[in-house]
């Protein structure tokens, strides 16, 4: 038993490492109060070490802690996403927090703990762990959303997110209870084994619906998306970046783990519901984004739309869909970190300069940043040769193969709509004169992170096989 325990610890060492980092940060803040710089360094070192560990542990699937969690390619794939997102977010945040006058070390602490929650979701083999992960992540984010304590919109965002998040958590827990009630276990592997006998029982189905609702809330899919625009707009920009990338990826990590890897619902009404949610998200997200003036709000609705695209892969429920989800997430996450990063650079200390018009003539003042922003917008619109294109390609392919051609057609049509509002920004940056009062003083770390994100977008767009190969191992 003792030996086993050590093996378990080794298998879960990336999570342990991140949690330890969080604890060290707690201690740092207790001992040397208000030392943001030290916390910044510690969190980066901690996340980087977790990255080393995740490689060292290897990609052979191994259960740990009585099959509560499983270390393996799936966990690895998502953990890498979370760690990269986390590191980029932290690099970009320092300058941003300084400019906004809210540079406090708790920020790093909360980000690190949120990442540990996300990792739990990727490792989860048990619904209880899923619940634990979602809570750990969400509670940190409720606080982060309200991190700008003196600004009303930030408080409002935090409160709304908390209220509705708690609402969703209730459903998650209730769903888990119902599933436990009908199957006698919360372990996903065992549920999968006896899936055939339970799959049609009403109690089980209600439980499944509740889980579906809770996950759909976390990834901001219609009609559970209503919090997203308000929260994205109100939260500090870098927190929004973290929310729209890490949290979305984590939500999908859980969604896929439960709905694709454990429940075998492909081709059943459950997948029709997923398809309906995907369709509604694509339509409402894209159409509403058309009318936005504020870029954060635009990206919020766009994030709803992208949740829809990823759900297309989930609804298809086949191998291509799985592949599409993984690729799409990678592409979406790097692009969004970069785009929000630029927004956070341009935003002034009053939370202004976030509208389309503020970007008029941006290319003349900051040609490099404008070029990168254009790359991000093109990728979001799904235009090759950027990474976003392949994400869309795979999910649409999956839909076609799953005989959901209508969904693929709808997806292509709505992405056509999205071209308009993404390109509007590019047009403003390049083809309009600006007032020229945008003051951007990026830190080196910020420029590096945004540049790196852009590099990845192009790299994955031209050589998608890097991601594809990694994703194929996950099967």
């Amino acid at each position: 038993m003792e030996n086993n325990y050590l093996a378990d610890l080794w298998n879960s060492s990336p999570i342990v490492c991140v949690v330890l980092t969080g604890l060290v940060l707690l201690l740092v803040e207790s001992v040397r109060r208000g030392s943001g710089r030290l916390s910044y360094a510690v969190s980066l070192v901690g996340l980087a070490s977790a990255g080393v560990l995740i490689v060292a542990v290897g990609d052979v699937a191994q259960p740990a802690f009585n099959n509560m969690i499983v270390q393996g390619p799936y966990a690895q794939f998502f953990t890498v996403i979370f760690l990269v997102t986390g590191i980029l977010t932290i690099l970009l945040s320092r300058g941003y927090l300084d400019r906004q006058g809210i540079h406090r070390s708790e920020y790093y602490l909360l980000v690190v703990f949120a990442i540990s929650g996300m990792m739990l979701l990727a490792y989860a083999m048990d619904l209880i762990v899923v619940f634990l992960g979602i809570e750990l992540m969400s509670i940190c984010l409720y606080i982060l959303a309200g991190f700008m304590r003196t600004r009303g919109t930030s408080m409002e965002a935090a409160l709304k997110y908390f209220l509705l998040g708690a609402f969703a958590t209730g459903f998650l827990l209730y769903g888990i209870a119902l599933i436990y009630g009908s199957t006698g276990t919360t372990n996903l592997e065992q549920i999968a084994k006896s899936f055939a006998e339970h799959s049609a029982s009403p109690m089980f189905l209600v439980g499944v619906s509740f889980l579906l609702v809770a996950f759909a809330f976390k990834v901001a899919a219609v009609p559970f998306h209503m919090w997203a625009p308000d929260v994205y707009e109100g939260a500090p920009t870098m927190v929004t970046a973290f929310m729209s990338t890490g949290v979305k990826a984590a939500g999908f990590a859980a969604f896929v783990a439960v709905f694709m890897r454990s429940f075998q619902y492909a081709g059943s009404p459950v997948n029709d519901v997923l398809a309906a949610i995907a369709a509604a998200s694509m339509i409402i997200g894209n159409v509403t984004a058309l009318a936005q003036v504020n870029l954060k709000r635009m990206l919020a609705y766009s994030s709803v739309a992208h949740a829809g695209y990823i759900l297309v892969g989930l609804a298809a429920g086949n191998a291509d869909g799985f592949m599409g989800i993984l690729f799409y997430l990678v592409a979406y996450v790097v692009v969004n970190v970069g785009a929000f990063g630029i927004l956070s650079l341009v935003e002034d200390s009053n939370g202004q300069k976030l509208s389309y018009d503020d970007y008029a003539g941006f290319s003349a003042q900051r040609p490099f940043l404008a070029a990168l922003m254009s790359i991000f917008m093109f990728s979001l619109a799904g235009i090759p040769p950027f990474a976003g294109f392949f994400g869309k390609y795979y999910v649409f392919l999956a839909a076609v193969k799953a005989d959901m051609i209508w969904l693929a057609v709808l997806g292509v049509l709505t992405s056509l709509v999205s071209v308009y509002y993404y390109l509007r920004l590019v047009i403003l940056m390049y083809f309009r004169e600006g007032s020229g009062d945008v003051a951007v003083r990026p830190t080196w770390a910020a420029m590096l992170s945004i540049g790196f994100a852009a590099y990845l977008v192009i790299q994955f767009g031209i050589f998608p096989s890097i991601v594809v190969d990694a994703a194929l191992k996950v099967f």
Partner: protein
Amino acid sequence: MISLIPIVVALPLAGFLILGLFGSRMRSETVIGTLGSATVGISFAVASAIFVEMLGMDPIDRKQIVQLFTWISTTTDTPSSFSVPVAYQVDQLSILMTLIVTGVGFLIHVYSIGYMHGDKGFWRYFAYLNLFIFAMLNLVLSDNFLLMFLGWEGVGLCSYLLIGFWYEKKFTGDAAKKAFVVNRIGDFGFLLGMLLIFDRFGSLSFDTVFGSASVLSVGTPVLMWITLLLFVGAVGKSAQIPLYIWLPDAMAGPTPVSALIHAATMVTAGVYMVARCSILFALAPTTLEIVAIIGGLTAIFAASIGLVQNDIKKVLAYSTVSQLGYMFLAMGVAAFGAGIFHLMTHAFFKALLFLGSGAVIHAMHAEQDIQKMGGLKKYLPVTYWTFLLAAIAISGIPPFSGFFSKDEILWKTFSSPYGSVVLWGVAVLGAALTAFYMFRLVSLTFGGDERFGKHHHPHEAPKTMTIPLMVLAALSVIGGFVGIPPSLLGGNAIEHWLDPVFASANAKLGLGGHEIHAIEYVLMALSVGIAAAAIYASRTVYLKRHEIAEQLKNRYARFYNVLWNKYYVDEGIDKAIVNPTVLASESLLWKGFDVGIIDGVVNGSAKLMAVAAGWIRRMQTGVVQQYAVFFVGGIIAIIFWLVLN
């Protein structure tokens, strides 16, 4: 030698990277211009060397695939496993396209050095132009649909960037956006077609797809859908009815760009794509028929609009749309070789016409209205003569290049089992209109009295501009000799050269060699006679008896207005599509408050603040509950769906 093809593609990319990264630091226009032109020039030289080598080869060896690296691969055997290499396919068709793209491209680069002199975006311009050449070469040289699509999107992007190049002017941005959006409709078709191909054939490589397609029987329904979707892509890119609307607006870009992208190369990508997929289209006779009808209609429709336009570039733009119609007409009647032949000659004379118009605009200091020109002959002799040669070529007067290619299309339209007399009639009428409006353009611009103000002092363009004009003029005159038909004792070298590419398509369609008929001479004489008559009429009206034009205009005012307003298509689209879309997106907005915000922006920020404030107050009291209501509604719907199913 053929293995050197990657160099041809890589050089413009290198040019783009160097200019894009360091261009802003380069002070000297000479350095930038030389660099930008040299990359394309060397590409052309290498491509020519490859071409010469291919001439000496056995026809079977001429097609070779140069594999560079695997672009996308899936190693495991899953349903999604497919592999797309970056590989270039050199064959008779693609090398011809490469020569046109790099050759005409090189001349236009050189011309641009003079034309863009002094522009503050000089380096940016050349960087985009190099990028365009790179993308276009990928499009024509690719050996699979995906890489072709990449090039397809790439040229679209460059076109967008270059149309909006002078972004200080509002209409350039709008034109760029229009081009992009309309092209996306076409791309949507291409993308769906590609997905369908992959779904059906399990591959995107040309060889595999065409190989498995060629065993299918004629009229297989799925092929009809595939080809129709691909054709939608071609219609968008090549500006055919109903998606031609972006091309005239695209003239907002610099004139050499119009010459290169919107006349000689990019817009012909659709024609190239249809030719490349000839076997697929051959198996779908319904699509061929549609292609022919759309092509024929576009040819005459655009030509009729060209009759009355006064903007020198607009006339040429509609002329381009019309000539592209001829190419599609050729494709539709399964005269693939003739279509590509016309693509080539058109590249010569239309590029020349645009560059000539550029020289005129340059001389007239950005004046584009031909009613305010006239008598430029004596100021711009080189431009005049070269322009005149191009006009004769496009009008189809022997022995100029346009005659041979257009006549080949006309004859095939008449004689091919897929053509018809009606289409032939339409095409001949279109040719007559073409001759008429071209000479209207020549007469109003260069002939007659000077109608411009005293402050204009037109002067001939610099050498960098006139030399490309002269080279293109020479090509416009002699370029047709590679395709002299047997009836005129020629060997029709170009069609024989291309034969292997279209062999399987022709075999499916049961088309054989070229037999000489007596009627061919009659038709040839007829079309030349009509064109000559049209030229004569045009010169009479616009040089000697100007009042006739006025009389006609007043007598048929209603018809004239229809033409002048381009059949009201743009207005119609605004009414039928753009406005409803805008309306729908507005009325669908969340609870209408965003409408309030938008209106607020329009009506002034004071109102905006009031609306926003009112909204926030309302939100703080009840909106979270309302969110929760939606949330619960969603849950109930899902449970009903699942449990009661």
